[in-house]
């Protein structure tokens, strides 16, 4: 069934057992993003030292795609440099815009390749990108305010 390409086991696992969920007490930057068409919301904290992301924590409500995607993103991007995270984020964004023509590079995207099927469902791309866009925003903010310290 076409639906199975959307709801991969990996996605449902992350949805049921999300990683890095629960906001850290302190943060270098905090952002709150919403998907106004459906009401999904996410708050995301990041911390960084010497240009490297030391923690990403989040809390939110939303569908399995949005929640699994932020779980995957936070686990994938933590302990990366901002440059590395940016490259991964760009690759993921390209995958989401591929309309089902790309599978995604598992060496770069790891669990996030499970979200490839989302690109065939235009209404769900925003769900998958919610957490990633929140991270992108947080990365800009932490680098503007503290220079990544």
């Amino acid at each position, binding site marked *: *069934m076409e639906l199975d390409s959307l*709801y991969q086991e990996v996605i449902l696992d992350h949805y049921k057992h999300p990683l890095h969920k629960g906001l850290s007490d302190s943060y270098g930057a905090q952002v709150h993003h919403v998907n106004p068409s*459906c009401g999904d919301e996410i708050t995301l904290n990041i911390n960084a030292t010497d240009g490297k992301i030391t923690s990403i924590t989040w809390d939110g409500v*939303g569908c*399995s*795609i949005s929640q699994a995607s932020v779980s995957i993103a936070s686990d994938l991007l933590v302990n990366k440099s901002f440059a590395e995270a940016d490259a991964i984020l760009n690759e993921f964004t390209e995958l989401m815009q591929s309309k089902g023509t790309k599978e995604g590079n598992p060496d770069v995207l790891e669990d996030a390749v499970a979200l490839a099927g989302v690109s065939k469902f235009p209404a769900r791309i925003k769900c998958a990108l919610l957490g990633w866009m929140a991270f992108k925003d947080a990365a800009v903010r932490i680098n503007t305010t503290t220079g990544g310290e």
Partner: protein
Amino acid sequence: MSFNVAKVRQDFPIFERTIRDGKKLVYLDSGATSQKPNSVIDAESNFYKFHNAAVHRGAHQLAEEATDAFEGARLKVANFIGAKEDEIAFTKSATESLNLVAYAMGNAEPGTRFALTSKDRIVVTEMEHHANLIPWQQLAARTGAQLSWFEVTPEGHLDLSKINSVITEDTKVVALTHQSNVLGTINPLEAIVARAHEVGAVVVLDACQSVPHMPVDVKKLGVDFLAFSGHKAVGPTGVGVIWSSLLNELPPFLFGGSMIETVTMTSATWSPAPRKFEAGVPNMAQAVGLGAAIDYLTGIGMQAVHEHENQLTDYLLNKLLAVPELKVVGPTTNESRGGTVSFTVGEIHPHDLGQYLDSQGVAVRTGHHCAWPLTRKLGVPATTRASLYFYNDESDCDALYEAILGAQKYFA
């Protein structure tokens, strides 16, 4: 008075197609927009093919025909809701209709009936669609008027227990929906209209979810303004209606061609209503399409439409309430409600549920349904909404029921 659903469906070409690899289309999203019968599609198309010209101008036969068709549509709308022709203005949508009233009030000369100041109050309800909330929020912000509202009870009804302290002596406008687009609740207008008029306020009714589904007579309702859209009533998109017997007292909202009487380099005066509210070349083909939609609905009979939907709502509610873990958000009995039913199913997020239903050919809406304050108040981030129309039958409700059970297995 009844009609054959299977026969009616033959008038709608979209029901000939299939969904997601050959599945029957189970369309339960008419609250968002209705499907269109051939007669409406043809009317819009034929206007362009045979009669297209700018109405109310042009010294030629086509302009005459276009004007006759456009004004004929206005008469049909007027007859449909028990109004007079000059009380009907065409807009591009119900959203524009509601904005028209709010902006026109903002244009009122200080001291006149519709002018608002910081001493005045605007009343809305917690169950409003964003289109009947934000224009009033913004008018309040521009004029300094206070925005107050009726709260919604956990059962999904307006709490009218404090009606006299919500609609106060200084209230100028009461804006509310006839039927909630989320809960299906039909609001009791009588008490609200009586109180509003007692304090000299006007009542603005969002009738988007009622006019397509039940007989509506503006005189019986007693409201002062009524807005609805064409596309939810088997008509085209791009056409809405604002009705009021007070249109002539209201200043214009949009300015330009067609809506003037005289113009100099420094001033202008206005045409009488409704032309005063129809600046620019109007949405002629869409208005004509709406006229055809009204002919179609009248052919079936609005009382028959209402009775069919009422019986089907009963069937749908019983079916849904039999689903384990399903919670109806809004009235759970079929009293004072229409065929719009919102619900949650256990821990399955509405987006995921909607996606699964779609894989089975069942089209519903998910999210906050443009009524975010309401879903927040009811403590649900989002719901799934099934909305019925006269072309639905019990087999559609059965398909929804089976698909929800399938989703529960899929996401278990």
